[in-house]
């Protein structure tokens, strides 16, 4: 039980920090809306077809990257990660706490991004299956992204490295999410997203310890 | 030669090219290692005679180089690609360090 208490404490710490600083989430919000506007100008012909859903997903992925890039920044800059690692809690609790707070940020941003997309492009594309796809993919993004962000934050080239590590791994999420939104039979895609989430959540949870310790 | 034959040949040639490029890169690496070893043995001799070094690290690459030469620097190049101009030749002293 103390494991879950640790996770809750860590997640709450991140959320409270963000509430006080208010820098990451507003930046992500502004970024996602700007991206959607740019996409309209980038594809004036296509932007009302099914291809537009792809644009939404690109916006979500890159906004997530923005947020993840800052995930471990505070810890690394102030050497807090060593302190957390020495703390008497399971290392994977750090991962889970960070994943939960990232998830909350993503959901907050998407609560604005999806209506914005419906407004700028074709609102009828955002049905319940599409939303379910976004939620499931958020899980995958948060779990894998947190692990990769921890890896990238340890290197010299943090902001450069995270997209390189992140993008190949989330291609399956993109396929699942777009498929769920576009296909008449979304069940396969949603099932696939669930499978991805399960596999990579377990893998990330188990291997986080090796990423932060030596 | 039909176009299909040309493309198939091209594919096999690409494979051959990659393997040969690998050989070239590895040969460069080996000659660099050889030079470094010569440098280090000179360094070792310079710091007061033969050091009881941990292990002779070049048994695998440095095979069959002939008998060691005492004292003077050997004039003949010791192995493949040993074009080190600044070192006075490579010596198979790797075996003698152990």
């Amino acid at each position, binding site marked *: 039980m103390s494991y879950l208490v640790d996770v809750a404490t860590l997640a709450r710490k991140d959320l409270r920090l963000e509430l006080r600083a208010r820098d990451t989430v507003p930046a992500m919000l502004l970024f996602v809306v700007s991206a959607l506007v740019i996409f309209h100008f980038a594809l004036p012909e296509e932007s009302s077809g099914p291809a537009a859903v792809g644009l939404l997903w690109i916006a979500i992925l890159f906004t997530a990257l923005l947020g993840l890039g800052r995930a471990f920044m505070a810890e690394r800059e102030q050497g807090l990660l060593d302190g957390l690692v020495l703390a008497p809690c399971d290392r994977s609790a750090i991962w889970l706490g960070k994943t939960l707070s990232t998830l909350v940020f993503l959901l907050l941003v998407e609560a604005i991004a999806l209506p914005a997309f419906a407004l700028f492009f074709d609102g009828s594309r955002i049905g319940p299956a599409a939303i379910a796809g976004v939620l499931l993919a958020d899980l995958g993004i948060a779990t894998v992204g947190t692990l990769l962000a921890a890896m990238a934050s340890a290197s010299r080239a943090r902001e450069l490295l995270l997209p390189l590590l992140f993008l190949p791994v989330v291609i399956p999420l993109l396929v699942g999410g777009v498929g769920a939104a576009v296909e008449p039979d979304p069940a396969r895609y949603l099932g696939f997203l669930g499978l*991805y989430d399960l596999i990579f959540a377990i893998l990330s949870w188990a291997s986080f310890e090796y990423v932060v310790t030596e | 030669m039909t176009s299909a034959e040309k493309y198939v040949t091209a*594919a096999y040639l690409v494979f051959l090219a990659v393997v040969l490029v*690998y050989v070239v890169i590895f040969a460069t690496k080996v000659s660099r290692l050889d030079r470094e070893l010569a440098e280090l043995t000179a360094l070792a001799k310079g710091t007061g005679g033969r050091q009881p070094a941990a292990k002779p690290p070049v048994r695998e690459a440095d095979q069959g180089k002939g008998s060691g030469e005492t004292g003077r620097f050997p004039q003949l190049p010791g192995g493949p690609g040993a074009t080190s101009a600044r070192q006075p030749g490579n010596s198979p002293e790797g075996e003698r360090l152990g």
Partner: protein
Amino acid sequence: MSTWSRNNGALALSAAATCLLVGGTALAFLWVPQDADQGFSQKIFYLHVPVALTAYACFAWGAWKAWRLLSRRQDRYDLESYTAVHMGIIFGVLTLVTGSIWAKISWGVWWTWSERQLVLFLILFLFYSAYFMLRYSLAPGPARANMSAVYALFGVVLIPVSFLAIRLAGTLLHPNPVINRDGPQMSASMFGVFCVCLAGMLALAAALYRTELTGKRLDARLRELRELLA
């Protein structure tokens, strides 16, 4: 590992690779009957598929060594895992190039998204290239070894997941059925020659792996020696 195996393993493997690959290629061009459907261009199959399977094998070997690193915590597995991934990406690039040539022969284009193996290798190429970026941006040490190992394990899990994703995406992006380029049936002789080529390619990868590993170990030991003497 016995001393004979350590000293002569690379030798034995490269000799085996030479015989198998030369023999296999000769059989492919001179003996095996030509495929009825695809004609001469099918011959590329004896090169492309063994290269692809060898790439998978290298990545799997790298992940195995990575697992050993994380469970046994012995330094040497880091170098072995890294070398295996290095081999894997070389063969991966070869797969992409030979696959592209085969696409050109079969469909007249240098790239097609409906060829699932090629798309998978593209994703893997991106993934494992990032592996090298990760390694180069970290200082050598146990931290880098651990992170590389975790990443290599992620890679090997990503292979089947990505393949599933590409299959799903196939129906999304290309409603046309994918042409099965292996041909409907492989005769026994074709399969035999294929196996010879595959064995040869695996032996080549193993030989290169050993040589590369020896080279890297020599490098490390020389550096160690330099530090001891300086």
